[in-house]
């Protein structure tokens, strides 16, 4: 019991909770420093544990014991846990440091840092738990702390509503989780994940329908937590919370918990469930990417992007490549946290410089030319965007290749592959739109000195978005992370497609290009007219020299240029315009579906329940003798049916 490994594991789990309490008690002044120190300590312990604790270390305790039945709880440590703990610890530390600057004007910072501690505690609980029941407990806790953080500014109008929405949406998923747990317990008499996996490997002694139910339940849990179709609507709304929280919870860690769970229990998922998972993941990736086009709020674009990327991870699981899913989870955690922190830095800049109340600091239509104002943010954002778009030399490329390769070599319906590839293009396009809108353009203002507390986390996350962190070969899919994981998780051999990297790079680049053309259309017209002038001048200067040349070459050049211009102006422009319009329309359409169909279903359910409630309540006429009649009729019916 009291060996070093257990102490390390318990320290990872409990330190954040203690730290959160300390931070809360330290008050507004010392809260940030306290929690950052604690998180740094946890990161140190996490790295130490990764180096020293052998895989398969576990820690068991009984929770409820009732005669022969007992519900155990425990912790478990292996490579997967280790990597996940380090990712969480690192991002938590960076976010805490970032928050010290970002939240410096908030009156209730102490509560904020306390909640961060609570969140980290519950997240480590999910990661370290060896037992589905304990996972469920922390699953709820993590949701709970997330609701508290989404609704952190509860005296405003929107945050409480969106935290409530998140709560309800997550509960639907949790019901599925419970169902899965019950089914598994009923058939295997244990909820220990390691034992379950052993039993699953030994051949499942369980009817197919029940296995399907269990898998479906676990997947439903992931659908809720990882914002998959059709429960994804809570995640964009959750952006009403503080931005560093969005970076930590709604980009890197909590939303990834669903994927983490699926990776953990992967062998328990039956082929039918995997098919369903793949299709849902594809639909999520596609609709998330499309919806991102119609947004003007910088955080919402990033949120939809997160939804879409989570869709990729889920697709990879559906395809049967949990390693790819997990790898994408890790890379995504870094670059998306980077993007969110950049957004935070931008919003912070506007908050610091613009005190106009009606000014919306998150609307990208109000932005432009920030390249010169926030240089570090600009560089970070560039690199993280390239990583997200899947450009070689960056980590996103590696993991995305792995995911798409997995999808192509699986037996998922081909529509899923199409979704995956089209989404690559769209991801690049909407990120390009965001990027050019925000950082280029004319609204140049004076340079703003970014605080070191904000710069440092950005730079660390930028560094982690390079390929070299994971592998030396910028095009190789095999690397340290995947290799070490392949030893403990199921990892089938993947078919190799040589054309795939080329295709995906072409898609990504063309996506950025389209965005460039669309957003910076004004800049495109100028060089053309300028070149016309140059050509005109040239022709004027050379008029006597070579009439023929002038006539043929220059005329041809002029004609060609005007044709090009015409093409550009009329056709390409129109096409792009049309495409953009179509995208906007479609995005709105998806939004409508979200709003009316999904929300409508929820409403319909609520209405049905209310209607039925009204009927049962009608019995309550207030007339006691009619009560007798109903009661006695009830008795007669029971007698009639039973004897």
């Amino acid at each position: 019991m009291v060996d070093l490994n257990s102490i390390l594991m318990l320290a990872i789990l409990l330190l954040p909770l203690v730290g959160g309490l300390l931070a809360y008690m330290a008050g507004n002044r010392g809260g940030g420093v306290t929690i950052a120190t604690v998180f740094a300590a946890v990161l140190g312990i996490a790295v130490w544990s990764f180096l020293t604790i052998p895989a398969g270390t576990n820690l068991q305790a009984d929770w409820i014991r009732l005669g022969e039945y007992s519900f155990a709880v425990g912790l478990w440590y292996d490579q997967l846990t280790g990597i996940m703990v380090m990712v969480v610890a690192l991002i938590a530390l960076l976010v805490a440091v970032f928050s010290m600057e970002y939240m410096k004007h908030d009156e209730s910072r102490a509560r904020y840092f306390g909640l961060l501690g609570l969140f980290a505690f519950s997240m480590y609980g999910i990661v370290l738990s060896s037992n589905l029941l304990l996972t469920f407990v922390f699953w709820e806790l993590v949701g709970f702390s997330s609701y508290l953080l989404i609704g952190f500014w509860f005296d405003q109008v929107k945050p409480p509503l969106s935290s409530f929405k998140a709560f309800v949406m997550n509960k639907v998923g949790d019901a599925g989780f419970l169902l899965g747990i019950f089914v598994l317990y009923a058939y295997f008499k244990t909820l220990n994940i390691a034992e379950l996996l052993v039993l699953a490997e030994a051949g499942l002694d369980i009817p197919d329908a029940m296995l399907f139910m269990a898998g479906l339940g676990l997947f439903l849990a992931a659908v809720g937590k990882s914002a998959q179709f059709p429960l994804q609507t809570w995640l964009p709304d959750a952006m009403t919370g503080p931005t560093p929280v969005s970076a930590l919870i709604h980009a890197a860690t909590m939303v990834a918990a669903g994927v983490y769970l699926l990776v953990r229990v992967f062998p328990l998922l039956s082929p039918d469930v995997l098919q369903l998972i793949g299709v849902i993941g594809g639909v999520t990736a596609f609709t998330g990417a499309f919806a991102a086009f119609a947004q003007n709020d910088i955080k919402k674009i990033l949120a939809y992007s997160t939804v879409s990327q989570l869709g990729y991870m889920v697709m990879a699981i559906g395809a049967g490549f949990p390693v790819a899913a997990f790898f994408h989870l890790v890379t995504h955690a870094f670059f998306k946290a980077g993007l969110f922190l950049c957004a935070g830095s931008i919003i912070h800049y506007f908050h610091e410089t613009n005190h106009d109340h009606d000014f919306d600091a998150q609307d990208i239509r109000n932005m432009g030319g920030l390249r010169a104002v926030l240089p570090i943010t600009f560089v970070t954002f560039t690199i993280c965007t390239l990583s997200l778009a899947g450009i070689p030399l960056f980590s996103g490329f590696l993991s995305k290749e792995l995911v798409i390769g997995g999808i192509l070599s699986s037996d998922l319906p081909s529509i899923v592959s199409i979704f995956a590839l089209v989404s690559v293009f769209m991801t690049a396009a909407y990120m390009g739109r965001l990027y050019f809108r925000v950082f280029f353009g004319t609204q140049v203002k004076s340079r703003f000195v970014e605080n070191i507390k904000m710069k440092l986390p950005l730079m660390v996350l930028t560094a982690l978005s390079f390929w070299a962190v994971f592998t030396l070969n910028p095009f190789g899919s095999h690397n340290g992370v995947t290799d070490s994981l392949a030893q403990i998780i199921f990892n089938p051999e993947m078919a190799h497609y040589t054309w795939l990297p080329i295709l995906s790079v072409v898609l990504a680049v063309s996506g950025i290009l389209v965005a460039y053309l669309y957003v910076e259309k004004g800049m495109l017209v100028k060089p053309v007219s300028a070149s016309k002038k140059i050509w005109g001048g040239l022709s004027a200067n050379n008029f006597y020299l070579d009439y023929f040349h002038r006539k043929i070459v220059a005329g041809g050049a002029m004609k060609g240029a005007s044709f090009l211009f015409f093409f550009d102006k009329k056709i390409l422009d129109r096409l792009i315009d049309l495409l953009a319009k179509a995208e906007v329309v479609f995005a709105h359409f998806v939004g409508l579906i979200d709003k009316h169909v999904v929300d409508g279903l929820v409403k319909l359910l609520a209405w049905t329940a209310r209607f039925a409630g009204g009927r049962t309540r009608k019995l309550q006429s207030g007339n006691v003798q009619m009560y007798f009649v109903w009661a006695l009729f009830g008795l007669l019916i029971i007698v009639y049916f039973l004897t």
Partner: protein
Amino acid sequence: MIPIEHYIVLSAALLIIGLMIIIIKRNAIMVLVGVELILNAANINLVAFAKNDPLLTGQMMSLFVIVIAVAESAVALAIIYQVYRHQQVSNIDELDELNG
């Protein structure tokens, strides 16, 4: 002797009539009368079954039932009286402030 079934027929008749009185009558006290009839029906059963019981358990039970019926009626009449004082109503189906 008298067959036990005949006792049961009698008690069942009183039970059913009592229930119907409870449902039909509007006056609260008449409803109480119906309840008393049901209790009497049960008592007839108890006494009839105890005929051969050396310990006379059934008769004991019926005595307890009678006493408890008194207690119940006393409380019932006290409440009915207060209801009448407050609402000037003695028909219980006119009491409809509580519903929904």
